[in-house]
């Protein structure tokens, strides 16, 4: 086993020095000779037939080099194959990169122009003549599901594009023996993670291959999209520094990669396209608005016997991500609870709004919201304490490794300890005392305590449990690679198979490499960012699904271990020693037993590097020259339940971090304004490789969930026009509204992962909306207010109070 000199320490960031000096390299920072700039003409209508698009006046403008209209998109490209994101689509619907004969949301791309300058391309857009035949639009799922509603895709005969369900245990029997059934209708609104850097693509169609620089989180999606749409096999995807992802840059971005590439092919010159903020807000993808009809079967003591949920997902104006917010609920279907019976019915309804995309948790914040709102409701209806209701339903410490009824295996944890600890840290009794003091005043205090899991490490076969009839198997388990190399001069470089979007992957991976190889951290660096021709990648090579800790850590650890063996073999031969008697310290191989003083026969990495690359005569027989190792990692404990069994049980993800959150809020009864006074988290992320990095992930995702609960979100007019086009209108929290989040770690190592690590990324975005909802409801308890909808903007809170006062 490796030493732990760096693993577990908040080692200084490797990436940060280049970012603080402005030397990050994002797509928009790159320029190629003869590069053109692209701009997109987008639909002003929420729903319209495209009658004609004429680009001739734009083409005639000096400096304009290519105009791609719907006719050209259809002629020059092919529709995407419906992938796993669209699983469940009942009739195939060809989806091209741009609109073809209809637009279904405001901002849908209609035409794209390449010109010598960005300003020139913008000017050209005004000269494209589009004739639309506007159609009635529909923006609510309720209306969209009516037989009389305007239909987005005629092929489907209606807007309810998918219906299905999963059931585990025997929910009907659980409901039959319940003392009580509690019910509520819950709503989570549309929001996004608004990465600060919008979408960006730079494409170059060279004779040997098509290269695209793209800020994609999942280069695999871009790779497939370009091959499918353009029929090109020789594709190279490069992902330089990425200015935030959060799920936003996984899927929809492929449209723009294809359109940019198409222009590059047409113009015969490199083309850069940079999305602007309002384009991103309107058409860059939103999280799904989700509605839940929830029924819980409970005993008089507050034990939850079963849950029935009807989930309606507003998927907007595209079928390409039809079921992602449903399928992702399999990942935390039972949250932290030992409940055995559950039925989840899902419906995906099309509306004339922006398509939906993955987004810090995709569906999981909704699932957690359902559970945690239910626990509060059960407590209220039975006159019990909400924390005790949770406690009595938790999976107990001695049940780990715990298999949930749908097949997820929670490797380790102690949920009750998290709950206890968060109560101590938030000073629960003291908050209750202060709350009582303030009763009757104009600012009321409330506390919400919730718990949730953060699943990590995706199993590609998950969706087979829901769509067993799928024609194509989506893959299974996971594969990710890494390469580690000792250079001729003894320094160490590594290449990961996946891109990073700011999660300090270089730092974290370097710590592992340094410890496994026994070399100073300063000597280790990443060779570069993702490049599909040189990065060892597989299905898990994605900055999504919380994959890094399971797959990248496993891969880089495996590659470094392989390289260490190689180093020891070569050193043993050079030193004429038994390899098992060698140790490595600070990049020097030393025979065990020899002390720091006295004559030691040792050999440095630099000496070994020189031999390995230049001196064949000194290589032991059978030794492959060079000092480099590549390792592809799959989770060694991916079974059981990597593939679904007869009951539809399947591992959705492989690791389960968990956390308890306590929010203390102050609600101004006159204005409805909510201020978060304290936000306390106790988190189990397994073995921490770099605690400060993990803290950062927790702070960021919690802040996002809090902002979402307090009012950030998209608002549409009845005509399908987006009213929140800017970050200000959208209501993103700033330093003024974001509380000082407090985190304590109570890690329980995972028994099945390389270092005992579990996921750390989007986790705190999952329970935080529920925590704020609980706290606001608690504050407003004197009014008997029930919180069933997000966001809790001042207007909504004020209305809730007014309705009861």
């Amino acid at each position, binding site marked *: 086993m490796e030493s732990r000199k760096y693993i577990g320490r908040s080692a200084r960031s490797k990436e940060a020095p280049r970012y603080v*000096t402005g030397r990050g390299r994002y797509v928009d920072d790159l320029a190629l000779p003869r590069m053109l700039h692209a701009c997109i003409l987008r639909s002003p209508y929420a729903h319209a037939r495209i009658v004609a698009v004429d680009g001739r006046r734009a083409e005639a403008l000096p400096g304009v080099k290519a105009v791609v209209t719907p006719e050209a998109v259809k002629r020059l490209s092919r529709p995407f194959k419906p992938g796993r994101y669209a699983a469940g689509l009942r009739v195939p619907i060809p989806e091209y990169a741009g609109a073809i004969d209809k637009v279904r949301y405001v901002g849908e791309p209609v035409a794209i122009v390449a010109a010598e300058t960005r300003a020139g391309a913008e000017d050209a857009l005004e000269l494209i003549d589009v004739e639309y035949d506007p159609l009635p639009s529909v923006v609510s799922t309720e209306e969209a599901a009516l037989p009389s509603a305007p239909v987005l895709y005629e092929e489907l005969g209606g807007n309810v594009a998918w219906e299905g369900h999963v059931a585990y245990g025997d929910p009907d029997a659980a409901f039959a023996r319940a003392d009580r059934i509690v019910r509520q209708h819950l709503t989570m609104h549309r929001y996004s993670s608004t990465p*600060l850097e919008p979408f960006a693509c730079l494409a170059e169609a060279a004779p040997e291959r098509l290269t695209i620089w793209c800020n994609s989180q999942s280069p695999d999606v871009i790779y497939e999209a370009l091959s499918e749409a353009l029929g090109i096999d020789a594709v190279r995807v490069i992902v330089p520094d990425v200015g935030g992802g959060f799920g936003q840059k996984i899927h929809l971005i492929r449209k723009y990669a294809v359109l940019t590439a198409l222009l590059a092919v047409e113009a015969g010159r490199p083309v850069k396209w940079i999305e602007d903020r309002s384009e991103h807000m309107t058409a860059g993808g939103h999280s799904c608005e989700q509605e839940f009809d929830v029924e819980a079967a409970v005993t008089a003591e507050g034990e939850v016997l079963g849950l029935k949920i009807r989930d309606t997902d507003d998927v907007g104006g595209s079928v390409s991500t039809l079921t992602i917010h449903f399928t992702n609920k399999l990942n935390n279907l039972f949250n932290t609870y030992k409940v055995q019976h559950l039925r989840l019915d899902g419906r995906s309804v099309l509306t004339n709004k922006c398509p939906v995309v993955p987004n810090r948790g995709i569906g999981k914040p909704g699932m957690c919201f359902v559970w945690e709102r239910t626990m509060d409701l059960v407590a209220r209806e039975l006159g019990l304490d909400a924390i005790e209701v949770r406690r009595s339903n938790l999976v107990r410490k001695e049940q780990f490794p715990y298999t949930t009824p749908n097949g997820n295996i929670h490797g380790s944890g102690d949920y009750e300890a998290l709950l206890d600890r968060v109560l101590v840290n938030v000073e629960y009794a003291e908050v209750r005392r202060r709350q009582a003091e303030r009763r009757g005043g104009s600012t009321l205090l409330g506390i919400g305590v919730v718990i949730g899991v953060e699943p990590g490490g995706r199993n590609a076969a998950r969706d087979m449990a829901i769509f067993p009839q799928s024609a194509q198997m989506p893959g299974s388990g996971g594969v990710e690679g890494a390469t580690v190399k000792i250079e001729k001069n003894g320094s160490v470089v590594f290449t990961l198979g996946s891109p990073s979007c700011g999660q300090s992957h270089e730092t974290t991976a370097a710590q592992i490499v340094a410890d496994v190889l026994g070399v100073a951290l300063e000597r280790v660096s990443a060779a570069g960012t993702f490049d599909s021709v040189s990065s060892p990648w597989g299905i898990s090579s994605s900055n999504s699904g919380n994959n890094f800790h399971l797959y990248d850590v496993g891969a880089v650890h495996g590659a470094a271990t392989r390289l260490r063996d190689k180093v020891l073999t070569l050193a043993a031969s050079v030193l004429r020693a038994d390899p098992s008697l060698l140790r490595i310290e600070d990049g020097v191989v030393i025979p065990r037993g020899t002390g720091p003083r006295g004559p030691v026969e040792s050999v440095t990495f630099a000496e070994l590097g020189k031999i390995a690359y230049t001196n064949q005569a000194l290589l032991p027989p059978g030794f492959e020259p060079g000092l480099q190792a590549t390792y592809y990692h799959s989770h060694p404990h991916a079974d059981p339940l990597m593939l679904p069994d007869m009951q539809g049980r399947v591992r959705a993800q492989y690791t389960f971090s968990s956390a308890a959150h306590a929010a203390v809020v102050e609600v101004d009864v006159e204005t409805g304004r909510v201020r978060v006074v304290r936000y306390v988290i106790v988190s189990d992320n397994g073995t921490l490789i770099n605690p400060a*990095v993990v803290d950062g992930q927790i702070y960021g995702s919690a*802040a996002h969930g809090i902002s979402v609960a307090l009012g950030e979100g998209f608002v549409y007019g009845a005509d399908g026009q987006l009213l929140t086009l800017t970050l200000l209108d959208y209501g993103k929290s700033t330093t003024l509204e974001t509380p000082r989040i407090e985190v304590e770690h109570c890690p329980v190592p995972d028994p099945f992962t390389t270092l005992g690590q579990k996921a750390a990324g989007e986790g705190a975005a999952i329970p935080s909306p529920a925590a704020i909802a609980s706290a606001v409801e608690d504050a407003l308890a004197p009014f008997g207010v029930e919180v069933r909808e997000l966001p809790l903007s001042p207007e909504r809170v004020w209305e809730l109070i007014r309705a009861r006062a």
Partner: protein
Amino acid sequence: MTHSIRLTVNGETYEREVEARTLLVHFLREQIGLTGTHVGCVVGECGACSVLVNGALVKACLMLAVQADGCEVTTVEGLSTRGALHPVQQALVDGFALQCGFCTPGFVMAVHALLARTPDPTEEQIREELSSNLCMCTGYVQIIEAVKDAASRLKSWNRGST
């Protein structure tokens, strides 16, 4: 029609022809290659484009290049000297105050300006002053701590350099 402008950026003088509509941020990024200044919104809401113009903090997407004619501009590239990080930069690095780094140049400039005006800011002042810079990754916790750290580093640094 173009206009000719002359300005100093990070101590170097540039004379360029610009279109009247060219924003300062685009001039910096595209005409003189200073890509450290970022564009997150181009309407003055995110602060990613923050630079100093004649010592004052300015959002470079809200200023035309022609308006910067005759001005002295400092960008994130102009803060470190001979490879050594400026104390503000070092404090942000050491405090894990960034993740994707896209907002970071703007924060570096905003913190620099804040500490020049208020060398000993309270947490409230920090939150107030930085509220026009958005970060989507960090939740601000480590940024605010790093600003406090930068304040004390800056004091000894200033003592050292006078």
